């Protein structure tokens, strides 16, 4: 019998599915129609094909907006009958993070990507003119691929895409559970909720910016491939240039926003950890920067065309590769924030293979094309049927690449003869060298990040081959390869830095000197005069900075010089050569920004200082070098660096527990004064686990990062218990002037009071009452006076205790030794005094604002360059 479920809104799901199918078909229609429009260009059919293609693209666009609208509607209304809504949100969640819920899952982030492609596609459609058919065909194919990721269609056991409108009770993980067999299962259902780490302001702006950057790489790629398609290898560069630099600007900003999120919200203490996911987005940016610069070179001298095409091509492919890495689950054991597998790795791989293959089909003509189509088709079929047989897939990729590059070379030589040699003193030669340095840098990062992929590739035949080689010639390299169990480097940071710092040095030097070189050839005297000043200034500054910051390592000193040189060179160029003329200042500003990013990273990361050094007497020896965490009891004060740090207790607000940490410094009068407070917190989340978030005090020249690495999170009941209970008392024999310490205060016996007010304690004639005057001095220097009293009446004695509630302390004077003038004081502490501690990590990041300033300048400078180019093109068109 069918169950009639109550309270479901399946109609919305149907609408969402309708839009999903339409967006896929619309994109496919546009791709096909644009291809035909190109085929029948300048014929009478051109117009109608264009009309169909544009209609298809509009249909696709409206459907994408429809999908997004429906999904938001479902999230807003907490329709937990939909698996995606259930999985990524709940009713308790603050509504401002609904955007984060939207793109937390793979489906939502694919939607975001599709959305930006779609929007930029409209700009392309309006601005591309004679390039519209070919470039838009490529955009539409990409959109069809992306739309297919949301289809959720099963063909046999293979499923295509993952549908965001799938009902919870139809999801494979749930459909066999008993609770979904109840008609009113929705009544008490709440969502699983959003990952606590994503409930952060940066997470609402970082993903859209990053995905806009991802989208932007598609457009130069579309132009480059369209250039091959139309056999116009040269003319695609000019219209593609603004797109390239737009991509550089946005993708760069997006990556650095991710760094800002990591710095503000994550616990590792830093903005970059060479995590595979971070690397995966950095690599395409590096190749895109290289590509953009080679395109500029080509605009000047007509050379390096194939390199430009290759770099733009590889940037887009690397975006697809990074999507594959982060979404296929292959990073499983090596990355902190990769997506888990939705069973779409095959689909993602086909997506990647297709776009590596596509240009190779455009360079061939006639017979060769037909042969290649047959060969590549059968390779693909073999590869697919055997579950992506490694060697066949590899052959498919490398042959495609070879055919593309070889075809390009032939096309070019046939058209214009071999390329010219560049003069070594020309700007273009060094820009080209710089681009290659970036390419090698990107290669190194990709290769090191790809160890899980390499393991997969090695496992089996290749591993046996290396085992055999290792028997012949035993060495560590072959032994490692034969096991196919490569793990990430032991010290990841060190590994990457060892390679990337030299690259950064070369890049900095090139950036600093490049502007002074002229295109074609630079007169030597002019070059020496200009560079001489900058070099001298940079050397002096490096000396000063290096001495102040105590940078001693040779590599770091060189990096310091290179980054200062990059900034100084471009600043001088900006003011003396350009005389501050804004329209041409974009590149200089962007380069200054890049130099500052290098400088800021060097200072903040190289000179970061853990002030929470544990000085515990329990030295664990050299096997345990780490002592960056320190215990801070409530109201205890510990010296950390230049500060006295005190933990003042916790408070609960909503789901967060805030730990108030005061930073004090000695004032002019020598007494500690509070300088600032930080409230690092723990977000309690019974379902997903508690997550600690740091708090950071920002100064212009440094940041103080404070993170609770461990705290006992008590239930309210446990807390009440701890507050009412008392610990074992401690006894002290004191003379006047003596001091004892409790966990949170200093207690001084300042005097003895023998003239106790009689009425207050109900004393009688002949009673002896003595009070111990105790001064209780907290870490905050707040003094309180307490006076426990000892009484003798006849032969019996009594004590009158005093409780100091605010410190959780109780005092009792229980014996007096008149001969020795000793007073026996018993002190009890509340249980909560002992339980109340946090484990803290505190780091000072000097000069991190240099880094953020650099980011802003780079974004602005690149943006200006884009704007100037777009304006130029429009003016030319207006004149024409």
């Amino acid at each position, binding site marked *: 019998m069918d169950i009639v479920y109550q309270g479901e809104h399946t109609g919305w799901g149907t609408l969402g599915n309708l839009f999903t199918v339409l967006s896929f078909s619309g994109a496919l229609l546009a791709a096909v129609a644009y291809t035909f429009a190109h085929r029948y260009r300048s014929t009478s059919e051109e117009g109608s094909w264009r009309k169909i293609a544009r209609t298809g693209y509009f249909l696709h666009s409206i459907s994408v907006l429809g999908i997004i609208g429906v999904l938001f509607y479902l999230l807003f209304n907490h329709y937990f009958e939909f698996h995606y809504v259930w*999985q990524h949100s709940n009713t308790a969640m603050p509504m401002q993070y609904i955007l984060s819920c939207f793109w937390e*899952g*793979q489906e939502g982030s694919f939607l975001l990507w599709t959305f930006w492609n779609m929007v930029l596609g409209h700009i392309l459609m309006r601005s591309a003119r004679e390039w519209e058919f070919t470039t838009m065909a490529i955009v539409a194919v990409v959109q069809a691929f992306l739309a297919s990721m949301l289809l959720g269609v099963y063909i046999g056991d293979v499923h295509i895409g993952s549908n965001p409108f799938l009902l919870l009770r139809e999801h494979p*993980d749930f459909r066999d559970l008993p609770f979904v067999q109840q008609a009113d299962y929705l009544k008490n259902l709440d969502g*699983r909720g959003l*990952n606590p*780490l994503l409930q952060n302001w940066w997470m609402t702006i970082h993903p859209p910016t990053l995905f806009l950057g991802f989208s932007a790489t598609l457009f130069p790629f579309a132009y480059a491939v369209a250039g091959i398609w139309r056999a116009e290898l040269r003319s695609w560069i000019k219209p593609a240039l603004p797109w390239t630099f737009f991509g550089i600007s946005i993708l760069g900003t997006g990556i650095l926003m991710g760094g800002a999120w990591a710095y503000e919200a994550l616990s*590792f203490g*830093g*903005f970059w*950890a*060479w995590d595979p996911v971070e690397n995966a987005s950095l690599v395409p940016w590096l190749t895109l920067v290289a590509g953009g610069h080679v395109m500029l070179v080509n605009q000047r001298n007509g050379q390096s065309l194939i390199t430009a095409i290759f770099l733009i091509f590889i940037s887009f492919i690397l975006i697809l590769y990074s999507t594959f890495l982060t979404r296929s689950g292959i990073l*499983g*054991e090596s990355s*902190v*924030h990769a*997506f*888990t597998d939705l069973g779409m790795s095959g689909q993602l791989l086909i997506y990647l293979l297709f776009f590596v293959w596509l240009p190779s089909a455009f360079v061939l003509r006639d017979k060769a094309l037909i042969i290649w189509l047959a060969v590549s088709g059968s390779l693909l079929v073999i590869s697919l049927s055997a579950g992506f047989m490694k060697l066949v897939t590899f052959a498919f990729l490398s042959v495609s690449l070879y055919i593309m590059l070889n075809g390009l070379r032939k096309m070019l030589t046939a058209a214009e003869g071999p390329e010219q*040699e560049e003069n070594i003193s020309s700007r273009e*030669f060094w820009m080209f*060298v710089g681009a*290659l340095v970036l390419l*090698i840098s990107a*290669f190194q990062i990709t*290769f*090191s990040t790809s160890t899980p992929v390499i393991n997969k590739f090695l496992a089996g035949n290749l591993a046996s081959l290396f085992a055999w080689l290792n028997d012949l010639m035993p060495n*560590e*390299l072959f032994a*490692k390869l034969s096991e196919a*169990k*490569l*793990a*990430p*480097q032991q*010290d*990841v*940071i*060190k*590994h990457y830095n060892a390679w990337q710092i030299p690259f950064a040095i070369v890049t900095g030097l090139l950036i600093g000197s490049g502007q002074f070189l002229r295109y074609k050839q630079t007169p030597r005297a002019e070059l020496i005069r200009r560079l001489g000043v900058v070099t001298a200034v940079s050397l002096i500054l490096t000396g000063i900075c290096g001495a102040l910051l105590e940078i001693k390592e040779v590599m770091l000193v060189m990096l310091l010089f290179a980054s200062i040189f990059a900034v100084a060179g471009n600043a001088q160029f900006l003011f003396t050569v350009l005389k501050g003329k804004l329209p041409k200042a974009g590149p200089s500003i962007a380069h200054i920004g890049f130099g500052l990013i290098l400088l800021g990273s060097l200072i903040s*990361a190289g000179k970061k200082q*853990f002030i929470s050094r*544990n000085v*515990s007497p*329990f030295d*664990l020896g050299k096997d*345990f070098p*780490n002592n*960056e*965490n*320190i*215990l801070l009891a409530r109201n205890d004060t510990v010296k950390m660096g230049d500060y006295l740090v005190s933990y003042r207790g916790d408070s609960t607000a909503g789901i967060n527990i805030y730990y108030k940490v005061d930073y004090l410094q000695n004032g002019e009068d020598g007494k500690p004064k509070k300088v600032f407070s930080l409230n690092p917190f*723990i977000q309690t989340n019974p*379902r*997903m*686990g508690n*997550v600690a978030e740091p708090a950071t005090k920002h100064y212009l020249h440094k940041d103080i990062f404070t993170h609770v690495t*461990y705290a006992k999170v008590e239930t309210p009941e446990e807390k009440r218990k701890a507050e009412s209970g008392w610990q074992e008392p401690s006894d002290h024999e004191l003379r006047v002037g003596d001091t004892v310490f409790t966990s949170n205060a200093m207690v001084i016996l300042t005097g003895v009071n023998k003239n106790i007010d009689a009425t207050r304690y109900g004393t009688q004639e002949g009673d002896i009452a003595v009070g111990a005057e105790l001064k209780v001095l907290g870490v905050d220097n707040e003094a309180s006076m307490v006076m426990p009293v000892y009484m003798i009446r006849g032969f019996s004695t009594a004590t009158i205790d005093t409780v100091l509630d605010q410190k959780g302390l109780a005092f009792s004077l229980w014996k007096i030794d008149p001969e020795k003038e000793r007073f026996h004081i018993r002190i009890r502490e509340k249980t909560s005094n002992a339980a109340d*501690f946090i*484990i803290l*990590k505190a780091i000072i990041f000097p000069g991190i604002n240099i880094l953020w300033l650099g980011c802003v300048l780079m974004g602005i400078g690149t943006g200006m360059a884009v704007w100037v180019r777009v304006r130029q093109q429009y003016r030319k068109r207006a004149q024409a």
Partner: protein
Amino acid sequence: MKKGHIVAIAIIAVAIGMIISTFLDSSTYATFEEAMEQPGKEFHVSGKLNLQKDMVYNPEQNANLFSFYLVDSEGLEKKVMFNGSKPQDFERSESVVITGKMKGDAFLADKILMKCPSKYNDGKEGLKEFKSDPSASL
């Protein structure tokens, strides 16, 4: 020889150097038994927590020492001494990847990668990393 060729050869040389250094630098996934065969050498070991045995974290004595028992994929159990604070919600993690070396009968870990059920971006599980090395992040 053309300048282009010199550049190309230099690039290929650097690339080969990079590939080899990456392989040599990389650690290896291993079991406790393999790690015991080469004490002092760094390995990645993945396994499951033994929740029956004590997890010891005494921050009053030392805030940077946490010990627990891990059962590797072969079923061998070893005591793990982690040089760092106890990760929040450690008990909840289903499987754990630790990085470090064997010393005597204990495994000295300087990094823990936790896989917690239904955490992080997606459905089934998520990862969380805890490092002890102060230089381990930029």
